[in-house]
């Protein structure tokens, strides 16, 4: 199962806050964060990595899918 977090349309810092909340709620599930700007992509990636997660980013149609594996 993957939990999806839609943070499109937000700059800093809402995407990080939404990711943090999802990480705290999720059990073993992976998280997919959708963002639409590179600042949010970098911030979410850096935050998830600082929490010891593995992070992969895909760019699809000018949006970024940040895949986070605990």
């Amino acid at each position, binding site marked *: 199962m993957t939990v999806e977090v839609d943070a*499109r*349309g*937000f*700059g*800093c*810092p*809402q995407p*990080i*806050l939404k990711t*943090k909340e999802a990480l705290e709620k999720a059990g073993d599930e992976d998280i997919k964060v959708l963002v*639409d*700007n*590179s*600042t949010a992509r*970098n*911030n979410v990636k*850096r*935050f998830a990595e*600082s929490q010891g997660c593995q992070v992969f980013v895909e760019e699809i149609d*000018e949006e970024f899918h940040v895949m986070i594996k605990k």
Partner: protein
Amino acid sequence: MIKKDSLPIVVTGIVLGVFGALLVKFGNPPNMGVCVACFLRDVAGALGLHHVEKLSYFRPEILGFTLGAFLIALITGDFKPSGGSSPILRFVTSAFVMIGALVFLGCPVRMVLRLAAGDPTAIVGFVGLIAGVLVGAILLKQGFSFGRTRKLSKWNGYVYPILTMGMLALVIIKPDFVHMTTKGHAPLWISLAVGLAVGALAQRSRFCMVGGFRNYTLVRDTYLLQGFFAFLISAFIINLFIGNFSWGAHPIAHTNILWNFMGMALVGIGSVMVGGCPLRQLILTSEGNTDSGMSVLGMIVGAGLAHNYLLAATPKGPHFNGEIATIAGIVLLLIIGTTNREI
């Protein structure tokens, strides 16, 4: 040891610190190398929104920030016009950010330049800024949001850079109908070059003077803080070298502890609410973010009001009108901050 990922933000801080301090040597006002609030106030004067002629000039640093960030964003694909996230509330919030900055006499950039020159009143401002950022972070944790933005056509993003090119043409041609000071500024091409370099670097690194404290408070992220301290340390070192460091009273600053604190607290709350400091708002605008564009326009109008209605402080101290406006601003931002949620 600086990590590879941190290099852009540290380099941005160092360039801003070195040239921010050096521009004073080239003729900019004391400790005002690249103060974004002061220089937007000067832009407001050149546009005729206030009539203090010595504070009227299309500052090439500001124009350079915009054009440098715009060009690099076009090249890298970060130019993505967007908008629609409570534009008029951002305008009002940012007008009060400007009023707070002019009660303190500087935005966070000048606060650091004053700190780096040994001005103890800037420490009070710094404490005020941190207090404001903490209040802003609490509002965010409780769910404050101006809402989502959406994609817009390219032309929405071109408007502000084109306006900036127009202002650049005016400062080069200097037509009679534009009232600008002939004193208190570095040579145009030096100012413009520094602005372009800092604008491009700040776009790449996402440099922000309040974001570091906000992100550290929220999630212990230190990325942006490294830029803040690189800026402070490099400006301090340059000030030592050029003989601009002295502990004690500094020009274009007042010593009123309460209103140095309150002015910067207002800047801190408002900057967190709109998603970044005045410099960051300029850079985001240049990337096509029209919500930040509303912030920049709000700051320019706020600066005009600040001088027309005696809200701005002077080196003698704050004006009563400015004290009232600062309190009103803090109350208003708290109301906006506690009543706006993601829809």
